[in-house]
Structure formats: structure tokens, C-alpha cells
């Protein structure tokens, strides 16, 4: 069976739907296929933040910004691994795409004014204004009945139907007791979505309104190549029936990375023991299809990692759920230690924590910080949530000890060392200081901490009863991926573009930013290059 379209898009996440909207709004006939039975992909699993420098909301809100400063910021922090043309395209086009989505496609992005860049103190950085997210999405109001259960819900935010703007207004993640839980319960009953699922919902509604065709539970098998040009995709339906979807203008690959494929991670990543926390369908199959026809691949070093913890017996997508713990290590009254009982990083900056956890020490030929625990005291326990665990609540699986030695015994770490670590830390923490690793020394770290804690929102001595949870590295995306140009065209391993094949999202290597990262970047790149790629394929003759 064969079907003909102008544009075929593989992957119904944010990047795929942005491309589909670009196609449909220009009158092209477009189909989106996805192996999943729901729409949203990695985007819907995410927190939904979108990082766009010099976006159109900033000027109205009094933030100054420019493309030149954003480019200087990223290029000076990329470790020399970014591509100038891709960076320039992203920085210049992303504000335009966000404005188009907001004003013409009814995807209501809003500004998170006080959310700082990770490296806001660095040249070209900003203490706020570059992060956007969407308002709440109500499937029952905005989607046709047959689509209302086709929108992916993130297990990470299943119990938090709120928007980022609301969370910021309610005092941030360290102030969960003051959130409006009754309103969220009402939204839960109405299946209202927040964060990445909300944005995916708005994108889906816009796509359906403009006649985009979706083929779900349709797994892409291989590209159809004729005369060196990609002219379509063979997809298999759930019953195994194969269909050729032919594209006169181009194929956009938006299948994500390989974060849920342990075999590929073991083959490619320097540190392979990460747990996929995004869609289980992000298994690298799209990358394999591209590699089969000679696509160039850039191994940019592992996964986009996040500290996580596991609640025994809690599952999503048929596997253990690893819950994000990006902010919790930044809360005052807690530290992170490894098996030696010592601290090893600035815990208020999760990238630093992840980097150290996955670092390999050639002296000992080991990963010395791989086994890591978030250790916190009674006041921390009484004040903050740990994922869905309420303040004050101590589940039986949570390690505890009346003294550092007692806790160390429970964890299997060096007792004397843990005692010394806490004692040394407390000496300076009394003054709100952490001279060893600089907790709370960045605007991002302070934003992650408890804003009611002075002088340092991330630092307070640990006192009394202690608790601990083991941390694991979760992966929400892949840094490595396909090489592409500033039109989104996939490059051949021998150079030049593979005609007809485009890429967006995590299927593409992190060539825009190299070794730099900021929350919301992956989503912003997906939306931007989805649009840019389709624009190019429709313009090309």
C-alpha cells in the first residue's frame, strides 16, 4: 500500500508537530507517524520549559537581550564543540518560531520572568526572561473526543497539574506546601495538563485544526531512497501491515535520541548506566534508519542526565520510574555524599552533580561518585517534598539514622568520613557559606534553593535526625545524534546533505550548543528546527 504526501514526519513529539504545523500552515499535505499510541513524545514527558533568548515577551517585561549576546554566551561555554552556523540559525530563528506558534498557532507561551540561565553570571547570561512555557491545557475543551486520550501524560508531573508560571508565583519548588493543591485536585479530575504535556496538547490541537494527519502505532521501518534522495518511509502498522508513505518535498526525522535503548547507550556513551526517564519509544530506531543510508553521526558524549531517585514499586511504562531530583539537592539542610562519605560537587547545580556522578577516575579505574546519596536532616524532611512524598512523611524505604554514624551504617558508607563531612560542612554553613564547593553561589542555584533561607537559600547546617535517598542518573535525551546543517538537512558521512532527509530534536546531535546546556534548550531546538526544516523543504525546487 502506498500513500502520497508533500511532507512525511516521523515522530509526533514537539519537533515533529512544529514541523507539521509549518507544513500545514503553508498548505502542504502532511502526515505524522509515531510508533506510540499517543502524541507528545519526549516533549510531553518534559517539564515543558523552552529557552529562547531575545524572545518577543522580554522587551514588554523589561528584559534586555540580543542575539549577539546569546551567541557569545553559548559559544564561550560550548567547549568549542558547537557549530557557528547552527548556533546562529537557532538564536535568530527561535524567537520568530515562538512568536509564530503563540500568535498564529494558538500555542500560548508565557514568560517565566524570574527563571535564570544556568550560567547567568557568565558573559551574555541573563538572570531571567529567556525561559518560556505554556499555560494549562484542557483536553476536554480543546481536542475532539476521539483525541482526548491520545495525549501523552508525563509520569513525572502526573500529580502536578500546574503551569510553570503558577509554580513560580506560588514560591517555587521549595514552597510546595503553599501551592493550591485543591485547585490542582480539581484539574486532576478534569484531566487538565501542565508543563510539557500541555504544550504538546496545544500543538496537537493546532495540528488537528489545520488538517494534519496522524498515523499512530505506526512504526517507521526504513527510508525509501531513489536516485540518492529520500522520498519516503516504510511504516508498519500495529498488525504488521507495511505501508509506503511517499513524500514529494521531504521527510523530517523527529524520533528523539536513544535514551531508552540500553544497548545503544552501552555502545556509544562514555557512561552507560543511565535510566531512560522519557518516552520508552525513544529507542534510537530513527537514528538506525538514518545510519543505514549513510548519515553522519556525532558522538558528543553521553546523555542529557538528571539526578533521580526511585520509590520502590513505583512504575511507569512498565518499568521502574526514576523521579527527577533536580532541585531537592539544592535545598538547605542537605548535601550529597558518595560511598566514601564525602561530598564531591556543588549540589545546588544539578549539572555539576550529574557530571561528577558519571565521571571515571583513571587512577582507581572506577566511577568514584556513581553511588551517591542525598543526605538531609529533620528540618529538611519537615519542610520540603521529595517528589510525591509530603513534608514530614518518612516512607519505610527511606534510610535514616539518629547520628551520621548510624546513617552511614544503613547506607554502607564510611561512618567516620560522613561524620567529618557533616561536621566540616556545618562549620561554614552556620554562616551560609560553602567554601569547598560553592553551594548557592550561582543565581540558578539560589533560584533552586529555599528563598526564605538567608543569607544563602541553599545552605544551612545539618542537625539532628538524618535521612538519605540513593540518587541515580536519569536520561531525558541524548547528546549524540545526527549531523545536520542550518536548514535541518541530515549530512552524509562522506559530506554534503542527504537530499530529502531532515532532522530535528534529540535525533540531532547537540551541535547548536556543544557541551553547554540550559533547561528548555532541547525543546526550543526541536520546535525551531522542525519549523526551519519544513520551511526549507517546501521552498526547495
Amino acid at each position, binding site marked *: 500500500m502506498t500513500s502520497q504526501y508533500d511532507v512525511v514526519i516521523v515522530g509526533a513529539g514537539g519537533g515533529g508537530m512544529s514541523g507539521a504545523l509549518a507544513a500545514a500552515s503553508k498548505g502542504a499535505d502532511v502526515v505524522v507517524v509515531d510508533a506510540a499510541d499517543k502524541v507528545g513524545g519526549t516533549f510531553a514527558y518534559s517539564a515543558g520549559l523552552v529557552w529562547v533568548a531575545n524572545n518577543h515577551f522580554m522587551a514588554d517585561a523589561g528584559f534586555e537581550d540580543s542575539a549577539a549576546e546569546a551567541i557569545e554566551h553559548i559559544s564561550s561555554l560550548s567547549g568549542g564543540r558547537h557549530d557557528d552556523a547552527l548556533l546562529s540559525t537557532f538564536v535568530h530563528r527561535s524567537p520568530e518560531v515562538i512568536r509564530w506558534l503563540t500568535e498564529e498557532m494558538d500555542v500560548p507561551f508565557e514568560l517565566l520572568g524570574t527563571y535564570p540561565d544556568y550560567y547567568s553570571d557568565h558573559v551574555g547570561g541573563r538572570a531571567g526572561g529567556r525561559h518560556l512555557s505554556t499555560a494549562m491545557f484542557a483536553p476536554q475543551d480543546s481536542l475532539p473526543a476521539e483525541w482526548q486520550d491520545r495525549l501523552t*501524560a*508525563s*509520569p513525572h508531573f*502526573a*500529580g*502536578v*497539574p500546574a503551569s510553570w508560571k503558577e509554580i513560580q508565583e506560588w514560591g517555587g519548588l521549595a514552597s*510546595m*506546601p503553599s*501551592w493550591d*493543591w*485543591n485547585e*490542582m*485536585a*480539581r484539574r*486532576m*479530575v478534569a484531566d487538565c495538563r501542565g508543563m510539557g504535556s500541555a504544550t504538546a496538547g496545544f500543538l496537537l490541537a493546532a495540528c488537528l485544526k489545520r488538517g494534519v494527519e496522524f498515523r499512530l502505532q505506526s512504526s517507521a521501518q526504513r527510508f525509501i531512497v531513489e536516485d540518492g534522495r529520500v522520498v519516503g518511509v516504510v511504516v508498519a502498522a500495529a498488525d504488521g501491515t507495511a505501508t509506503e508513505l511517499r513524500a514529494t518535498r521531504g521527510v523530517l526525522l523527529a524520533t528523539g535520541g536513544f535514551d531508552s535503548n540500553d544497548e545503544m547507550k552501552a555502545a556509544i556513551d562514555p557512561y552507560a548506566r543511565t535510566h531512560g526517564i522519557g518516552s520508552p519509544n525513544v529507542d534510537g530506531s530513527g537514528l538506525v534508519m538514518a545510519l543505514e543510508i549513510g548519515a553522519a553521526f556525532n558522538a558528543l558524549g553521553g546523555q542529557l542526565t538528571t539526578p533521580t531517585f526511585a*520509590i*520502590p*514499586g*513505583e*512504575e*511507569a*511504562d512498565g518499568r521502574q*520510574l526514576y523521579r527527577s531530583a533536580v532541585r531537592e539537592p539544592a535545598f538547605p539542610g542537605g548535601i550529597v555524599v558518595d560511598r566514601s562519605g564525602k561530598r564531591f560537587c556543588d549540589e545546588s547545580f544539578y549539572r555539576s552533580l550529574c557530571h561528577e556522578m558519571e565521571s571515571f577516575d583513571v587512577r582507581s579505574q572506577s566511577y568514584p561518585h556513581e553511588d551517591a546519596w542525598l543526605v538531609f536532616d529533620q528540618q529538611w524532611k519537615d519542610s520540603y*517534598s521529595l517528589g*510525591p512524598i*509530603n*513534608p*514530614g*512523611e518518612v*516512607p*519505610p*524505604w527511606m534510610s535514616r539514622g539518629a547520628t551520621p554514624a548510624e546513617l552511614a551504617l544503613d547506607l554502607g558508607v564510611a561512618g567516620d568520613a560522613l561524620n567529618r563531612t557533616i561536621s566540616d560542612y556545618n562549620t561554614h554553613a552556620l554562616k551560609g557559606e560553602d567554601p569547598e564547593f560553592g553551594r548557592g553561589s550561582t543565581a540558578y542555584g539560589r533560584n533552586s534553593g529555599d528563598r526564605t533561607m538567608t543569607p544563602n537559600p541553599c545552605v544551612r547546617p545539618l542537625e539532628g535526625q538524618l535521612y538519605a535517598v540513593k540518587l541515580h542518573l536519569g536520561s531525558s535525551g541524548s547528546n549524540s545524534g545526527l549531523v545536520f546543517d542550518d536548514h535541518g538537512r541530515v549530512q552524509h558521512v562522506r559530506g554534503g546533505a542527504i537530499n530529502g532527509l531532515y532532522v530535528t530534536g534529540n535525533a540531532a546531535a547537540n551541535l547548536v550548543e556543544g557541551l553547554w546546556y540550559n533547561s528548555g534548550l532541547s525543546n526550543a531546538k526541536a520546535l525551531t528546527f522542525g519549523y526551519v526544516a519544513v520551511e526549507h523543504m517546501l521552498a526547495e525546487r
Partner: protein
Amino acid sequence: MPEVVYSKSVPASRERIWEYVKDMDNWAPFIMGYQSHEQKDDRHSIWTVKGEMGVLARTVVFDVKITEWLPLQRVSFSLEGVTEKCDGGGSFLIGAKEQPIGAVSRSRRGGRFRALLRRWFRRSGREEASAETLVDSADETAFSFTLSLHAGGMTGPVVNAMIEPLMGKAADDLAEKLTAEILRSDGDAGERTAP
């Protein structure tokens, strides 16, 4: 507090129903998400249940204590979450006279209609049971059960909103399986006593 009330008439004697339900080993595996249970003594047991709450599945351990044990009539129990901050209780009742206030057969009334009735009776101050009368007869015995579960703490309202639909489904499922099994065991008993 999320609460479910379920009533049904079964073509079996009161004795037969009691004989079956008094031993929790008989029906424990019929509880939706049942993983295991461990009987500490004749009044105290530990239950492990895996609940599907939307996109999440959570394994929860409950401490269950029998608070009332009236043979052929009723069993009441309390629930206390071991791994989660939630508690509640319930009862299992045999016979029309023992029907709980508000009891109505879930299996006989559609969701929307039932919700409408509930709202109306709540507004008017009357009890829902008046919408349907369950009777014991020579051929049939009514049974019912109630279950309430309440998640506390800061996230309680959201968790309660998540578990309420789950409890309805679990009640429907348990009642259907219980009925089928009581009837099946009744049939087996009949066959065994046949000449």
C-alpha cells in the same frame, strides 16, 4: 474522602456467602492489583496492592485490622498505609437488613445516571438507597461492601482525586469476581452433595 459503596444480590444463601468470604485467602487474589497478603493473626494482616493511577503504578502496603466480626452478618476493618500516608476502612455486610446507608448496586446503574442520582439525593438530603431496594429471599441474598481511603498531607487532595476512580473500578471488579466465585463454589458444593 474517596469512598465506594457496593451492593448486590446473589442467588446463594447467607451461610454460603459467609462460608466463602470469612476466609480472606479465598478472595484476596480478586482485589485489583493484589500482590500478596500476610496474616499476622486472626484480626491482623498486611496487604500489598499495586494500584494503577493514570500513567503511574504504585505498590502500596496496608496494615489491615479487623474491627468487627459478626458471623453471617458483617466484618468491618481499618486500613493504614505502611508505605504511603493514607488510611481508611471498610466493611463487608451480608443480608438486606445490613445494607449500608447509601448502598446501591454499581453494576446496575450507569456512571452518569448514578452520579446524577447521587447529586440529587445529596442536595435533597435523602439517601441514595431509596433509589433501589435490595431484598433477601429464599433464592437470593444481598451483600455489600464499603471502602474508604484517604490520602493525607499536602498532596492529599490530588492523590485522592487520582484514587477515587480507581476505587470505583476496583469495587466493580471485586464484586463481579466475588459473585462468580461464590456461585461457582456453591455449584461445586451442590455437585459434591448430589446423590
